[in-house]
């Protein structure tokens, strides 16, 4: 009986891993293309990752600033909505899983029941922009409000004064919502915490809060600061129940050179809290949830280089960070847990319709909160490689063949303390309209 339960649990683990293969929330916004008559390639280096023009457009509040941004210039039938969906075949294998037949590698695959992103965004009026993204709509019926914000742009007549209110993605070095990859392997450093930390703060997950953002012409210099209530906190009651702050500043160069056409450097950091105790209605603390906030921090840097011609660049991205979780967040900890990590990614858009990309993620604990644990327990690494071929694109829609492999290893997290590795294979058609 016990063996059957273990088998069921293992199967559930594989199914869960398979479910993660659902496309990562990502952006390609044909509604903008329809409004302005521009092809996807105008804003995307290779869809969905933005290029310089796309970043400037986003930073300007989804405006081209030609005097045609206000919705009154649209035909009454214009509706600022788009959909993105990726029908796909995927196969997932997870190694070193406990079953009633011993430790096994388990795999499953098929044509997944994928959900979709319903993307609604644009301008309400000149210098007032918005984004609302319900996502999900899979057979389980769940719909999740991923983004819901309004932004006041160019306040006081300057691009250095923009304020956003609502659920938004913080200004990451590389957007977690615009990755080239579609398997469930995320940018590990965004969600990584010291081993055993209770904090569930994920930089890549959208947060309810406010953002200040400023930039110069062309967004060569940018700064953004978000203040928010940490998403998914069990102690969340109001804006200040589980506060967090995130900041990011970058400087970019553009050169008239065929060797290195652009480069960008930046720094980012977050200070977030997480509860360790909650309270009953009578005010008695319940261990493990609620109040008694303790911090997690991350501080990092980025470097991005665009080799070759800027219209068909080889884009190299390096992001690294050091993090620390308070010992109070870690079971049996006698010291704060610390870690280092980051990723190196490249995407080569060798034609407007083709990109090959690859990424290596690495996160390593540098100090276990519980010093009795192995130094490298829950160290993680992942490699992702893929190719996208766009069959067609216009100023209304785009569809592409997407082929990808990723492999994500967690040290000491499998059965009997073995390493576990999740291998994912994906072939699909990614389209947006």
């Amino acid at each position, binding site marked *: 009986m016990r063996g059957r339960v273990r088998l069921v649990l293992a199967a559930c683990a594989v199914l869960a891993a398979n479910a993660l293969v659902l496309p990562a929330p990502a952006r390609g916004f044909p509604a903008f293309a329809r409004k302005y008559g521009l092809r996807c390639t105008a804003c995307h280096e290779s869809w969905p990752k933005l290029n310089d023009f796309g970043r400037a457009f986003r930073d300007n509040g989804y405006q081209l600033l030609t*005097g045609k941004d206000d919705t009154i210039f649209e035909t009454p039938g214009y509706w600022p909505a788009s959909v993105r969906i990726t029908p796909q075949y995927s196969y997932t294998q997870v190694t070193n899983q406990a079953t009633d037949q011993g430790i096994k590698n388990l795999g499953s695959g098929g044509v997944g029941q994928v959900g979709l992103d319903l993307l609604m965004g644009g301008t309400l009026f000149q210098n007032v922009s918005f984004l609302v993204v319900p996502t999900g709509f899979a057979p389980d019926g769940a719909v999740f409000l991923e983004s819901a914000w309004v932004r006041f742009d160019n306040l006081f007549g300057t691009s250095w004064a923009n304020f956003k209110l609502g659920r938004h993605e913080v200004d990451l070095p590389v957007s977690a919502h615009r990755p080239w990859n579609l398997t469930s392997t995320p940018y590990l450093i965004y969600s990584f915490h010291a081993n055993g930390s209770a904090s569930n703060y994920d930089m890549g997950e959208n947060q309810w809060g406010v953002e200040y953002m400023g930039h110069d012409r062309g967004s060569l210099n940018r700064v953004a600061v978000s203040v928010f209530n940490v998403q998914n906190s069990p102690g969340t009651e109001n804006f200040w129940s589980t506060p967090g702050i995130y900041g990011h500043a970058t400087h970019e160069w553009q*050169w008239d050179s065929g060797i290195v056409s652009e480069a960008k450097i930046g720094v980012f950091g977050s200070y977030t809290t997480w509860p360790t105790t909650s309270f009953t209605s009578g005010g008695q603390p319940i261990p493990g949830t609620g109040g008694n906030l303790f911090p997690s921090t991350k501080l990092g840097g980025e470097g991005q280089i665009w080799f070759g*011609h800027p219209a068909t660049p080889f884009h190299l991205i390096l992001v690294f960070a050091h993090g620390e979780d308070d010992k109070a967040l870690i079971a049996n900890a006698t010291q704060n847990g610390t870690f280092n990590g980051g990723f190196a990614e490249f995407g080569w858009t060798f034609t407007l319709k083709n990109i090959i990309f690859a990424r290596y993620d690495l996160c390593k604990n540098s100090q276990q909160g519980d010093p009795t644990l192995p130094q490298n327990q829950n160290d993680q690494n992942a490699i992702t490689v893929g190719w996208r071929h766009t069959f067609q694109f216009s100023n209304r829609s785009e569809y592409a063949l997407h082929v990808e492999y990723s492999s994500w290893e967690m040290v000491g997290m499998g059965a009997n303390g073995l390493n576990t590795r999740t291998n994912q294979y994906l072939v699909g058609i990614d389209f947006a309209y």
Partner: protein
Amino acid sequence: MKRLYAAALAFAALGLTAPARAQGSGGDPVKGKVVYERYCLSCHGELGNGGGEFAEWITTKPRDYRQGTFKWRSTPSGSLPTDADLDKTIRDGVYGTFMPTWFAIGERNRRDVIAYIKTFSARWKTDKPQAAIVIPPEPPYSEASVKRGRAVYEKSNCAQCHGQDALGDGPSAHELKDDWGFPIVPYDLTGGHIKCGDTGPDIYRVFMTGLNGTPMPAFSDSISEADAWDLVHYIQSLSALYPKNYGTASK
């Protein structure tokens, strides 16, 4: 950290060692074709004829490059524009139309796409841009200059197209067509930004060189330099942006 600085300096050096060029000149048309397909094709069309997939939905039609006729120039009426003129149009966009500012894409993209745009018209092989007109120093903005400018506006019959109050609603406004036969509406000069740029020299250049391909002629033979500056000041006075934000309004 020293390595990081060294890397940053190396990248900077790579950029700094790039050969200095006049804005927009010396582009690579082969690379420019890719730039064109990435950014321009949906409006200006694969053939450069202004017949892209979005063109039919917009009223100010995209430029047809095949004739080598361009509105925004520093050169005399009828001349080809300079590379710097084309770069300015691409870099700053054309306010009030669907031509955005492409400042963000960088100089190299713009330079190469200019080289490609020139391949659409044989005129670029047989003709050369004339020298840019000389724009004299701008006199100070004053109410007296504005008043004189209004007189120039009336004397030059600007109201026939642009209207008595410069709203773009003159008696001829609804009869005008461009060289390609598309209806064209005179610009409402009271709306704020000016299509070709907001500075005094930008506006001066328009009525001294004209807008080729449109009914807007060059007035260089009929308006003196002093009168032209007065007219500039009158036009600036029509907008809430001026003179408070005189010459500094950005896009």
